[in-house]
């Protein structure tokens, strides 16, 4: 049941900004803990925001992450401005990655980000337009 009250978090994500990588996720986690959201749900939301943040940093030309929290659910919207994902089904496959060698050396590019995000979500949707950008929406229900 939603009372209409909502906490909204809004973060912008810059490309190749590895120094701040993980900040959005850890900040989101702090907020969820302060709200008393159960720890397993908090952990799932942290994983989704982390993978979303990394994908925007690595694969896109920048974007933003919005987290909406009400009493019933957490909604995580990760939106970027390009280049888009040409084949979503393929991108969703475990182990599929187009990450460059340079990025792989940093420990990313296992091709597990999107599958992990889906596994942690109750609702999961990717919309993408070539040249325009990608929006990944994840919903996690709060049951307690």
């Amino acid at each position, binding site marked *: 049941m939603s009372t209409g009250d909502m*906490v909204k978090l809004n973060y912008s994500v810059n490309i190749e900004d590895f120094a701040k990588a993980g900040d959005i996720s850890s900040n989101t986690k702090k907020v969820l803990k302060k*709200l008393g959201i159960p720890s397993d749900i908090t952990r799932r939301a942290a994983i989704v925001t982390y993978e979303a943040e990394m994908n925007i940093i690595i694969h896109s030309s920048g974007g933003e992450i919005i987290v909406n929290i009400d009493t019933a659910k957490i909604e995580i919207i990760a939106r970027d401005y390009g280049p888009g994902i040409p084949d979503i089904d393929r991108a969703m496959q475990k182990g599929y990655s187009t990450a460059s060698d340079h990025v792989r050396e940093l420990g990313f590019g296992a091709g597990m980000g999107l599958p992990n995000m889906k596994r942690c979500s109750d609702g999961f949707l990717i919309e993408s337009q070539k040249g325009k950008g990608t929006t990944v929406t994840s919903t996690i229900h709060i049951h307690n």
Partner: protein
Amino acid sequence: MNGYFHSVVLSEDSCKGCTHCIKRCPTEAIRVRDRKASISGERCIDCGECIRVCPYHAQKAVTDDLEDIKKYKYRIALVPPAVHGQFDTGIGLGKILKAVEMLGFDEAYDISPYCDIASAIIQKYYLEEEKITRPAIYSDCPVIIRLIQLRYPDLLENVIPLVSPMEIAARLIKTDTVSKKNFKREDVGVFYLTPCPARVTSVRVLIGLSFAYTDGLISIRKIFGSLSKNLGELQSLEKVEGYEFSGRGLKWGIIGGQSQSIVSKNYLAVDGIENVINVFEELELGKLKNMDFVEAYACTGGCVGGPLLVENAFVAKTRVKHLADTTHSPKLIGKEKVKEFIEAGLFTWTEEIKPKKMVSLDPNIGKAIQKMEKVEEILKKLPGIDCGSCGAPTCRALAEDIVNGRAREVDCVFRLREKINEIDRG
């Protein structure tokens, strides 16, 4: 006993309200109000950071005194490697144990052989027989267990449910003494020489156990003077024999020693509470999956960096390492013996460790959300420089305190000035 016993306490008389401690506390447990600091029992994990940083020594540790050992007919001291780090390595381990006995103990035992028992159980049972979720976390440091319980409850399934070497020693030695020397259980007192307040808490507010065999803990800093004096008296002696040590076990006093003694290939050893928090953040995100074993200590360098010690942590670390390298290590107990211990349930936790809920804005999620909205409103009016002069560690923490009625907006000096200006103009 209330659930919030802590061995780190504040002495109101010495506290000057300087706010040094509020920023150092990793769980934001301290507030300064009306020029006095106070610690929230719900949040404190007894890491001792505030003891280290307080220039007035107002933060103190509750430990037992040497007087307390007199309550027992037979008195036993347990000596951890951190004690050896306080003295010159040339003195010799045996003399240090002797000097401890001279404080009024019937017998002193070195902890190192009991660290070996823990090493064997971890390696030969939990790791080799895959009895635990990877990466396995074992911590001989009670702060770490509290931290996991409070902030990373999902990692509890990775924690090896084995008691500390301190308790292993207390259990074996006490049982043995009672049967060999024909004492009643309550006649034998086992005292651990502690480098930190966290261990004191660990036997008062038990985690994973319903009963502790360790009867008391004595601050190493408090007895350092008497120990040095006793060592002086022993100076003329050639060498003191009759105690058991293990080089491998001595390494447990320094960071990395545990991992090395269980011969884990993929291990991660992390020291310093902030670093530990960073690693746990990664673990919680499901990273570091290829690790077998994680060893974590709240203090820099491991227990040689404990807040109730005298010697500089780095000097102590070098000394303990040297002693470990030059002391013989007996063979670890075999798989059969390990199995025997496990089956007897002698050293494993008997109680389930329940996650502790982090302090949220409100027990009701809906109300917490409303309060969070208010926090954001208030935050917009605060300067956002986290100066600490309001007595809260950050502007956000002050905003949260205001929402929960524990502080006022004018506690912020900037807001106060604005308010005064408004009145002047009005």
